[in-house]
């Protein structure tokens, strides 16, 4: 230090260590801030993408949860229906209810003269309306020969027009509607004969060629059954495999070979698993196409590597001291695994399994291979009923030309996301329950 004070000139030219450090320090802080900013930017970018995605889906899809209905005065005319005995359920069942709707429409709009015009007029009401009429007559046979006002399902073109119209007629999406049809709809609007109601059909029916009658329930049931098969098969098998590989398998070439293969399988494109399922389950075992059972088997194969890898990591993370303690007390290997290793690693295993199942729920490609892409109207009642799944339903609808399917596609995406969030929430709650707080 005496040196420095005796040479002030040199000191002025060469900065002291502290000056250098301070100068550097500012630089380091700046670098630190930049580094942090990169991270924040990445998160903001991700969030922005998510917000855009959700806004887009919700803005397109929310209208699908409402459906346009038309108010018509319908006369349950016994002659038109050809019912002579009201107590005969068969007569009620086979009667032509669409004739009632047509009669009602003709009555209101007398300007529809030609055959073509009449066809246009009848097209304004969905052919699903006749089912509504039949049900109400079945419920209340006294309606026969009565005239009542009913709200009937409108055709998808009317639905699209009415939803897009807003307050100004000019904004409306006309699409396939001819000017005369638009005029009729406008009459309904002025008469307040048309309104939007909650679209229960969307949640209670299967697929349909008619957008106003198409629902998501079939695909939801299909996804549920497929996922059920996947969970029941892949979780126990995956955990058992992981336990064997971690706890029992000798450390040799064969075990290494198996390990490498499992890691590779996790990276195999999912469509390959679909082809495998097609060849083995459908080709060799001659199972039927489009079954949730086959879908579940294929998705199990696809999910297994993920579950095995994450379960092994979870088992590895159990402290060896716990194993030693149990072994030292005279617990057998199986007891050590069942009493200590599995309970302690279960939360970790579940985390991996959740990721695997979420992936399986959103999987489309392998299911196309095994025929789950079919058009199926009936709602599956079990794992051996032909069905489709949510992502495939989204794929099918997004491919349909009717404009009303656009909003239904977005709505189906929302349902799939809700399904996913529900499932994950349940799994996370389960995991937190199992996680020891000590």
């Amino acid at each position, binding site marked *: 230090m005496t040196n420095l004070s005796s040479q002030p000139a040199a000191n002025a030219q060469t900065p002291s260590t502290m000056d250098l450090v301070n100068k550097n320090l500012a630089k380091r802080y700046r670098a630190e801030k930049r580094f942090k900013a990169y991270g924040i930017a990445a998160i903001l970018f991700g969030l922005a993408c998510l917000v855009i995605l959700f806004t887009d889906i919700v803005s397109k899809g929310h209208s699908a949860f409402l459906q346009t209905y038309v108010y018509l005065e319908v006369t349950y005319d016994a002659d038109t229906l050809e019912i002579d005995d009201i107590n005969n359920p068969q007569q009620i069942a086979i009667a032509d209810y669409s004739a009632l709707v047509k009669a009602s429409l003709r009555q209101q709009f007398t300007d529809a003269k030609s055959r073509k015009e009449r066809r246009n007029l009848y097209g304004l009401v969905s052919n699903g309306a006749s089912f509504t009429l039949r049900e109400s007559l079945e419920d209340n046979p006294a309606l026969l020969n009565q005239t009542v006002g009913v709200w009937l399902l409108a055709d998808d073109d009317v639905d699209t027009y009415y939803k897009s119209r807003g307050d100004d007629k000019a904004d409306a999406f006309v699409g396939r509607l001819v000017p005369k049809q638009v005029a009729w709809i406008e009459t309904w609007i002025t008469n307040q004969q048309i309104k939007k109601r909650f679209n229960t059909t969307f949640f209670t029916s299967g697929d349909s060629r008619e957008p106003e009658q198409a629902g998501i329930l079939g695909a939801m049931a299909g996804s549920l059954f497929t996922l059920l098969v996947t969970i029941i098969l892949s979780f126990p098998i995956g955990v058992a495999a992981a336990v064997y590989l971690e706890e029992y398998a*000798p*450390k040799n070439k064969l075990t290494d070979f198996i390990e490498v293969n499992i890691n590779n399988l996790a990276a195999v494109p999912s469509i390959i698993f679909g082809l495998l399922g097609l060849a083995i389950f459908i080709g060799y075992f001659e199972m039927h196409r489009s079954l949730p059972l086959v879908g579940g088997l294929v998705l199990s194969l696809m999910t297994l590597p993920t579950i095995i890898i994450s379960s092994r990591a979870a088992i590895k993370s159990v*402290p060896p*001291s*716990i*194993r*030693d*303690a*149990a*072994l*030292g*007390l*005279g*617990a*057998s290997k199986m*007891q050590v695994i069942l*009493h*200590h290793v599995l309970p*302690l690693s279960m939360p970790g295993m579940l985390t991996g399994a959740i990721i695997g199942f979420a992936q399986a729920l959103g999987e489309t490609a392998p299911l196309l291979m095994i025929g789950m892409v079919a058009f199926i109207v009936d709602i599956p009642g079990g794992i051996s009923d032909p069905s489709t799944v949510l992502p495939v339903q989204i794929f099918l609808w997004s491919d349909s030309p009717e404009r009303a399917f656009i909003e239904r596609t977005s709505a189906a995406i929302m349902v799939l996301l809700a399904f996913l969030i529900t499932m994950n929430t349940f799994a996370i709650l389960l995991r937190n329950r199992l996680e*020891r*707080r*000590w």
Partner: protein
Amino acid sequence: MNENDPQISQDITNLITVGNAFSEHAKMSMRNVNVFYADKQAIHDVSLDIGKNEVVAMIGPSGCGKSTFLRCMNRMNDTIDSCRIEGDFRLEEDDIYHPNQDVVALRARVGIVFQKPNPFPKSIYDNVAYGPKVHGLASSKTDLDEIVETSLVRAGLWNEVKDRLTAAGTGLSGGQQQRLCIARTIAVGPEVILMDEPCSALDPIATAKIEELIAELSQNFTIAIVTHSMQQAARVSQRTAYFHMGKLIEVNDTKKVFTNPEHELTEAYITGRFG
């Protein structure tokens, strides 16, 4: 060890154990034990008896093989694939490494307490009850309650935990955890308790409590204890075995080892010239 010290940098290949390695009332007797980890030999031709109700301390520098030897006494080293064990281990008349010897039964007779307290992430009660449950020692809930209470009393922990038996065992302090581990071990009713540096993770007060406990337990159990603390060996044990580089150098009465060791390596170690 210090290679520059001419007195102790000597060839150990021809060393033989000095002192008195054998006991008239041997509970456990080990003869000509060699242990290998893969190709590396960790224990060289060690013979040692542990007398009934005796506390034998095993001391020596790090890596001298004392813990390995202890773990071989209830076959804890079976879990290490590369470990190969030669020699004769007997618990009274039974051959510990006989192919027909059941490891589970052996560990019920020879319990072990580890260096780091390792209670299960369960309640205090469940920690102690685990061993008896696994071996089916209790026929009823009352029986089990009694075993748990007796074990905790004998481990000197009962008064501290009797009001919170359902609390987590891992929530106790380090010393309490180690006494819980001892209670857990004695709940199975072993004949021999092996202790692998049981106090090395504890503070002096907790250590003193464990040492008191060891003295009490020696009335009913045979104890082999590995320790790094020579004071501890001197306080708790009747005989002391000194290990050096996988060899058993000297076994003698504890008093003799610490006041008048026969072997110069022992003397070098206890006077702090290496270790």
